[in-house]
């Protein structure tokens, strides 16, 4: 059944069709639009499952992927370097897993949105955008070359802009979408330069060809292209220092946060690193940088998350932190661990976001201290949230435990003891901040009246909760032929089970939970007192280490002034020149128009005169005529 694989390009088609239909035809019929989008994503999901099964049964491994492509554009000849751009799909285990994760989460999020977005004036458009986003993301995952990937990468960015700014009448949403777009632009620009420089060096955009070429000649000359390419993931996966957009992106509707800013789009950066893994692994300095950026981001974001009190913001910083984990895993050299964590994280983070959405839906506030005791009225939401929180904290035997554990194991095994300590610390902080949230929101005194959300919202929660519990077993060390023998780089790498680490991280996580319990349930420690003691530190952390302010300052003081200078230059010098040219052009047009008198004799005269002039020109040798 190779047909199934060779037609994998069909996967993004249903959402694309749904998008077009919704925008052009069914926009007025809300329910129909939504059902159309859900139907389309279901088709894609089923096909993706088919692809995954096919990959498993065909024995397609990371080292012998299948690739189908047509030449999209080919140009060139003798004097110009031949340019060949393909449109094609690359299918290997990594692709197949990503396809399933993206379509599954998207499907659940779309079903959830049926309830969550009910009554919104932009209901249909919302589903249209979601479909468009899914299409772009699937295209990105399937692409077999950097060029195609870049196109879809940009489309994903565009969707994110549209969806964050979905409530565009809200000033903060409009601002957040702009911020996300501009921040991502920095990364995209580097990414673009990176793939162009790779093209200049190796003459191809194709992943496999590039991998082969890089395998043959690898050296320090690749550091700059590698760093440029890396700029893309740093922005898209919200790594320090380009992480600032992600927390603000929470201005978008919650399902969007779940789909884009937790499960899929931010994973694109991690996916990109994994795709071009050979480029980074050979360069020790670059890998080192990746690992430490990831580790630092993980810690940095976890610290910030501890003091936030907007429910979505906490989860957002947790996302940044978890993405840091993944990037760190890739940096220390384990593709398997990074992607494994990406997969489990997609499920439990989507779960957390959707559950948070359910809470917001019911409580009409995002401040956790304005909520409380929701566990009584919202049973399903509470329990699924707790499952997500446990999974995030890495409690045995939930999904997060296995994947986080593998990352920590790998870090230690590869000799990054420093990163291991950071990772463990993050595990502790993670457990603390997420259970701080749980205890404050779901237990304690009841502060708001809330009702359980409709079935369309709770069913996806339950499915995701199930996955958050079970998906980790795919990569658990005792499973033979598990995740790490499915997705790997060059050869499967099996980590030795280290019970010490397992127990250590579990203890840390439990410690975090216990601390949260002590502080927020038993009130043994008064958080207000603590913050008062370390007022200045608290303020710094609460304000996210003033990174935003620094950027703001950089942006307004330096960039704006540079911008102003350019603006002046543009307005007075460049515009002057171009206005002059344009004016001249217009004037020339207006003058030349007068040649057309409408008089037949004049026309005939012009034709004859031209012939005579050409004849004279050709006849006179001085003017380059006939010799």
């Amino acid at each position, binding site marked *: 059944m190779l047909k199934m694989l060779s037609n994998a390009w069909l996967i993004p088609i249903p959402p694309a069709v749904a998008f077009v239909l919704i925008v052009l035809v069914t926009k007025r019929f809300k329910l129909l639009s939504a059902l159309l989008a859900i139907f389309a994503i279901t088709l894609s999901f089923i096909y993706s499952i088919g692809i995954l099964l096919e990959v498993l049964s065909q024995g397609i491994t990371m080292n012998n992927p299948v690739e189908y492509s047509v030449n999209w554009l080919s140009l060139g000849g003798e004097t110009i370097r031949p340019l060949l751009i393909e449109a094609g799909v690359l299918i290997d285990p990594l692709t197949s897993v990503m396809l399933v994760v993206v379509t599954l989460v998207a499907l659940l999020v779309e079903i959830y949105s049926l309830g969550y977005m009910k009554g919104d004036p932009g209901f249909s458009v919302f589903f249209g955008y979601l479909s468009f986003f899914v299409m772009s993301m699937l295209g990105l995952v399937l692409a077999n070359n950097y060029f195609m990937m870049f196109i879809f990468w940009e489309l994903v960015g565009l969707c994110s802009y549209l969806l964050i700014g979905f409530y565009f009448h809200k000033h903060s949403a409009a601002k957040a979408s702009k911020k996300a777009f501009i921040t991502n632009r920095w990364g995209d620009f580097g990414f673009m330069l990176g793939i162009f420089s790779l093209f200049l060096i190796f003459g191809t955009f194709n992943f496999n060809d590039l991998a082969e070429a890089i395998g043959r000649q690898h050296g320090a000359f690749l550091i700059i292209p590698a760093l440029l390419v890396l700029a893309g993931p740093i922005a898209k996966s919200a790594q320090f220092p380009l992480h600032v957009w992600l927390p603000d992106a929470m201005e978008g509707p919650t399902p969007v946060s779940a789909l884009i800013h937790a499960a899929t789009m931010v994973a694109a950066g991690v996916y990109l690193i994994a795709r071009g893994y050979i480029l980074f692994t050979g360069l020790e300095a670059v890998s080192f940088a990746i690992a430490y950026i990831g580790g630092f981001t993980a810690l940095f974001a976890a610290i910030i998350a501890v003091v936030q009190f907007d429910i979505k913001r906490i989860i957002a910083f947790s996302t940044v932190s978890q993405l840091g984990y993944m990037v760190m895993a890739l940096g220390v050299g384990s593709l398997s661990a990074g992607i494994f964590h990406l997969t489990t994280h997609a499920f439990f983070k989507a779960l957390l976001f959707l559950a948070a959405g359910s809470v917001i839906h019911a409580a009409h506030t995002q401040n956790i201290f304005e909520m409380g005791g929701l566990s009584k009225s919202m049973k399903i939401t509470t329990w699924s949230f707790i499952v997500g929180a446990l999974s995030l904290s890495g409690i045995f035997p939930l999904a997060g435990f296995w994947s986080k554990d593998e990352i920590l194991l790998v870090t230690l095994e590869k000799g990054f003891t420093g990163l291991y300590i950071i990772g463990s610390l993050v595990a502790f902080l993670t457990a603390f901040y997420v259970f701080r949230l749980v205890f404050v929101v779901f237990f304690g005194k009841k502060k708001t009246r809330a009702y359980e959300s409709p079935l369309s919202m709770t069913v996806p929660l339950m499915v995701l909760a199930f996955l958050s519990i079970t998906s980790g077993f795919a990569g658990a060390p005792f499973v033979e032929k598990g995740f790490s023998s499915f997705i790997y780089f060059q050869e499967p790498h099996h980590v030795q089970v280290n019970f010490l680490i397992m127990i250590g991280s579990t203890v840390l996580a439990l410690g975090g939970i216990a601390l949260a319990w002590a502080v927020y349930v038993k009130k043994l420690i008064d958080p207000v007192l603590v913050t008062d003691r370390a007022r200045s530190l608290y303020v710094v952390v609460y304000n996210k280490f003033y990174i935003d302010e620094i950027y703001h300052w950089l942006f307004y003081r330096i960039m704006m002034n540079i911008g102003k200078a350019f603006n002046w230059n543009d307005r007075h010098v460049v515009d002057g020149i171009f206005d002059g040219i344009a004016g001249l052009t217009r004037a020339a047009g207006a003058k030349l128009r007068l040649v057309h008198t409408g008089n037949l004799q004049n026309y005939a005269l012009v034709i004859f005169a031209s012939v005579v002039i050409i004849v004279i020109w050709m*006849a*006179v*040798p001085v003017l380059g005529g*006939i*010799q």
Partner: protein
Amino acid sequence: MLEQFTSIGIFIFVGLGFAVSSLLVAWIVRPKRPNPLKMSTYECGLETRGRTWIQFKVSYFLYALVFLVFDVEVVFLIPWAVEFLKLPWIAFIEMFIFIGILVVGLWYVWKEGALEWK
């Protein structure tokens, strides 16, 4: 090779010269005895009355065109008829196709009323 253009120059010169010289010779040799009748515009026709920029009846041209078409037909028909016996049978069919096309044309002209002098 500018000098090669001399042939074109001579060509133009001789062409002009021929026209001018023939007029010139005629002007020299012809007797010049003008009288009012000879000086009139149409020596052997009628004086025009009124403006000469009048609209002609378009039927003149239509007649001329139709005439021309059948004139051309004859140009083709005569060589065909002369060599008729030596030609393969397809030539016979071809000529009928040709005549057929002209007949359609005639039919069209007739139906459109171009043959009626209104």
